[in-house]
């Protein structure tokens, strides 16, 4: 069995839906860190069946909005002296700015690229965001 030791101090991004770990790794540019980082894929999970986990042997600024957007089931564990000192849940953000593009080809944000597209989570929707400029709905896809 594969064995990965726990980290003494840093961040564990847990409960990542299986298959999304690599995408999160790339989105957060974790390959650019100078500290040890581990990506575990297809780990057995009671809740999810299989899950991915990322362990970072350091503290970095994590954009919780982007993590919520990618996978609202994610848990962030903050580790100090081998102990979990804080658990953070991420959520699908209500408002998002500049993290993705509006899908409407007629939207002004597709031409005037200095504009950071802003979105609000659409009513009665778990994934679709309404553009604040053209009101079209865009579903965020990693």
């Amino acid at each position, binding site marked *: 069995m594969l064995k990965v030791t726990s980290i003494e101090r840093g961040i564990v991004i847990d409960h990542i839906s299986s298959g999304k770990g690599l995408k999160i790794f790339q989105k957060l540019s974790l390959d650019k860190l100078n500290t040890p980082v581990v990506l575990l894929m297809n780990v057995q999970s009671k809740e999810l069946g299989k899950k991915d986990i990322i362990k970072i042997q350091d503290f970095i600024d994590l954009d919780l909005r982007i993590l919520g957007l990618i996978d609202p089931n994610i848990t962030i564990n903050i580790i100090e002296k081998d102990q979990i000192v804080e658990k953070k849940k991420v959520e699908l953000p209500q408002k998002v700015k500049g993290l993705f593009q509006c899908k409407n080809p007629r*939207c002004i944000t597709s031409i005037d690229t200095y504009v950071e597209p802003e979105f609000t989570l659409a009513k009665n929707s778990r994934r679709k965001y309404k553009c604040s400029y*053209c009101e079209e709905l865009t579903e965020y896809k990693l």
Partner: protein
Amino acid sequence: MNLTGRHLIDPNDFTIEELQKVIDLGLDIYNNPSNYSDICRGKILGTLFYEPSTRTRLSFESAMLRMGGSVLGFSDSNTSSVSKGETIADTIRVLDGYADVLVMRHPREGAPKLASEFSSVPVINGGDGGHQHPTQTLTDLVTIQHYRGKISNLKVAFCGDLLFGRTVHSLLKTLSRFPHISFVLISPEQLKIPSHLRDEIISNTNVEIIETQSLEDHINEVDILYMTRIQKERFFNEEEYVKLKDSYVLCKDKLKNAKEDLLILHPLPRVNEINYDVDSDPRAKYFEQAKLGVYARMALMALVLGVI
């Protein structure tokens, strides 16, 4: 309730009470134009028309000139600095120093909102792509109030291009906020209203909506029939346009079963969706609607300029 300095980008920017204030003032100006002929002396309207729109532009210009103000601007982006690649942000930052109120028509959806973020003077959306056209909505509301005396207890049919028809989007959103309104939405399957708009209306109000492809099945039951043109410029695929362009043609014969006090409206210009034989029908009010649009815009500009 103060509209001075306010932008009008989306009809929802104004409350129903604020919209009613514009409507009432528009009709008062219509009935007593001489009382308002000088209220905008010294004020300048800047017209930023990035795509052709003879009617809306001339309606705004007429409105400002009828109040004693002046007009400057462009009506073709090819003859302005825009053709050199200037951004909306820069154009607005310059022009808001030249004018007291700006109206923008743009083929891109959301452009007037972007303009409003960089403007220190009120920006009025004169139509953005297939998105919104709030001053057409004011025109429509003034027309309805003029002929009906109130905006409530109405069954309103929209017919034609409900997907790209910005006048439809704005009026639907706005009418759904008035009391006891219901809608019949008549369109080909490919041109139904955007789902986000339908969801928004349904989730925010208790409005009853019937979606159908048949004009004939519902013409007898509606109080207002709002016809729209199927717009060639909104299609990326010409073949699709050709297939759909003649989906609905209103003619005298089809009006046989309609109510005697039906109001037939159209934002104009029409192509062939209303036969010329309908023009003489007393229920056809689209040319009066265009005329009332000048008074709606006079009222709006007077209020955002704070001259009343």
